[in-house]
């Protein structure tokens, strides 16, 4: 469909198991993500989707399994290392600084790119100033890309939900990520907002070549925009493949529609 070429496997999760005490959140899950693709993780409530995302960017540490990222093998990710490696994410419940303006929120997304130290920034002269201007220019590109010019100076808390979601995507984009993890980017949105969000996700993928892993409930959305889908249920993988394949997978159908085994 497009000029972007889906490349080699960039992230490979092998036999991941995650337990919280006696609760098995994820059991022996393996799947991979290719460069430049849109990869969806779906499943009913409590299937372990968010846990999976948290394993990928190092918030949770799985008890078993291996994560191979760009050929580098490790047992788990550290959140900090994940961010430096080019992971950025959005959250199911919006996690923005409500009292800060949209612009300032997006600037926090650039935090890892700052090289000057605290003292230099406090004086705001020379290198620190140059650096801020460069970062601001990047942030402005994101603002332009997401068409949020009109709310640049508005405190995030005053924005409607749909726009806050967009701002959160903006903050993730400001970090110029290689892999973007989106946790239910379309939850709670109306049809028009969903359409906008879909367009932005596709544009990000197309324009910047960003690899995207997303969790989503809305099956219509998932089928429309993802290249490949992995299906979880009760912490186990029950399906993996293109949207079409997954849709016809009897196990997936029964997990979603609740047919008797």
């Amino acid at each position: 469909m497009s000029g972007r070429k889906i490349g080699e496997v960039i992230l490979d999760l092998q036999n991941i198991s995650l337990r919280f005490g006696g609760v098995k959140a994820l059991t022996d899950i393996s799947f991979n993500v290719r460069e430049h693709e849109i990869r969806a993780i779906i499943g009913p409530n409590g299937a372990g989707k968010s846990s999976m995302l948290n394993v990928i960017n190092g918030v949770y540490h799985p008890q078993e399994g291996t994560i191979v990222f760009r050929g580098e093998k490790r047992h788990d990710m550290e959140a900090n290392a994940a961010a430096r490696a080019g992971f950025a994410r959005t959250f199911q419940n919006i996690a923005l600084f409500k009292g800060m303006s949209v612009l300032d929120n997006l600037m926090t997304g650039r935090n890892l790119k700052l090289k000057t130290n605290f003292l230099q920034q406090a004086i705001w002269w020379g290198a620190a100033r140059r650096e801020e201007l460069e970062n601001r220019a990047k942030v402005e590109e994101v603002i332009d890309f997401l068409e949020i010019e009109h709310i640049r100076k508005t405190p995030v808390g005053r924005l409607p939900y749909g726009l806050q979601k967009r701002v959160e995507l903006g903050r993730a984009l400001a970090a110029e990520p290689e892999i973007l993890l989106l946790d239910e980017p379309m939850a709670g949105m109306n049809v028009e907002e969903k359409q906008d969000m879909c367009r932005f996700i596709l544009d990000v993928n197309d324009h910047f070549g960003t690899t995207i892993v997303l969790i989503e409930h809305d099956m219509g959305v998932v089928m429309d925009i993802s290249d490949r889908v992995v299906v979880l249920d009760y912490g186990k993988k029950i399906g993996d493949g293109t949207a079409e394949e997954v849709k016809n997978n009897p196990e997936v159908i029964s997990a979603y529609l609740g047919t008797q085994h």
Partner: protein
Amino acid sequence: MAASQSGLASSPLDTFPRLLLNHAAVRGDRPATREKYLGIWQTWNWSQVAQEVRAMACGLAELGFKRGDNLALIGDNRPRLYWAMCAAQMLGGVALPLYQDAVAAEMVFVLQDAEVKFAIVEDQEQVDKLMEIKGQCPCLEHILYDDPRGMRHYTQTWLQGLDEVIAMGRIHDKNQPDFIPGEVSRGRSDDVAVMLYTSGTTGRPKGVCQTHETFIAAAASGVNFDQLTEREDILSYLPMAWVGDHLFSYAQALYAGFTINCPESGDTVMTDLREIGPTYYFAPPRVFENLLTTVMIRMEDAGAIKRGLFHYFMAVAKRCGADILDRKPTVSTADRLLYALGNVLMYGPLRNVLGMSRIRVAYTAGAAIGPDLFRFYRSIGVNLKQLYGATETCAAVCLQPDREIKFDSVGKPAPGVEVRIAENGEVQVRGKILFKEYYKRPDATAESIGADGWFHTGDAGFFDEDGHLKIIDRAKDVGKLAHGAIFAPNYIENKLKFFQHIKEAVCFGHDRDMVCGFINIDMGAVGNWAERRGIAYSGYTDLATNPQVTELIRECVEQVNAELSHDAMVAETQVHRFLILHKELDPDDDELTRTRKVRRGFVAEKYAVLIDALYSGKASQFIETQVKFEDGRTGKVSADLVITDAKTFPVMKKAA
């Protein structure tokens, strides 16, 4: 580019391309165009603009654009779309701006009618629209887009980026430096420069052909009238297809050589207005109304002290502000002192918030402005004036001279323009500013310009004792009640619309025994009002049918009735019954024109069942209406509308 080089120094400045090249030679370093891009205002001076326009013209010529071709322009106010107008004119072509928010189907007619071969559009959204209808417009050969975002996968050969076309033009211009000066010198002042389609309150839109001569005459008249200089700044944010924007942002800017500023997007206009602080400003009444509504809403939310101060000083301003602006000697010293204090504490900051600190002259036109609204801006020291005109007259028939401001008149005929009132009360105009013709419609042209050369505006009006023109209504809208009283719906509707809670009103009464009306509430103002009272609502329809809202609107209607009862001319036309519509009147549903005037006939037909209910004495009426969304999909809105009786007042004798 010096004038001597281009060989144009001696030729008269009677076409827009010549004006442009002259500015590049005379004031090449002065800013010509600004646009906010990635949060920063970018400036192009006149010589840069001239270079860009030349390159664009050469690029268009390479693609085969010829003398007499029409160049369609679709998009928000972008510098390159303004420049493209001049580029087309350099080649002897005609600029044809279209309303950018029109849905694809609406564009078909214009594109077919004008046999458009070339279109320059803003972005992917507009490209998609044109692709949808390209099959119906066989003439359309080239579509050029300004913003390449999202366009990478469009491989059609007839689609090109404006960047590439300009780059191609630059090479062309370098190789053949005589080409553009040659083309410019072939241009004649009576060539058609621009074609503006009338919004068409009635029937199909008609292409109004304006020559260089007419628009330059109109621009010159306004510039001389208000002594505008090259130092003015103007915010260009109104639709490019509207005659007002074309006059102010294109014709006058090119005539006087002042700076146009393009906002970042339609949603940022308020912020951009404050940042630019224009010295010369133009807006239809609707914009002034929205600004005032925003201020009023914010004031209601302010603390008690601030609110008290605001109301106190607004009362002072109402009493003497406008007179002080008009330098009338009648104002008392005490009032002058109070006003000066108010200026420091209230009016100054308020003007600043509105982005009107630097305004020397502001105009409004396009629809009648409520006297109270008009008075508000003048009283806080904004020199807001009215002008009157039509697309066919380059928007410049009458202007209010400084210090001769009347709230209910549109001023005196502009220099060089003759105005007369026909026997049936219709305003007729003659002068250099008249359009050449309706495109390919000699019948319509003959109908509107009589054999004696007078243009029939279709507006009803009269001159007062000072020679000021007063417009009452569209001539065809003015009717009579069954018992003979004159019924001017617009007059009543404007009174209703001045209430911040009422966004739109449509009154009926012709050949009826009483006046009844539809009301559209203002979602922002009424929503805020409801929130402060803890009234829950789920959307427009829900809010509109809320009984407390009905009560609020009833009070407004009764207040208007009280005012009407004071004036013998209109006292019979008080609003007896009204209902609040379940949906906002919308141009996408053809209920408003693109310039947001009510299409009265259409509305009356569409909601005939509601009108019947109003006049048959029913207490409520069920209605279901189809609505069109911006992307062309449709949905349904239905509601049970309550019809309310409003109190009317006995006719009062006019106070001495």
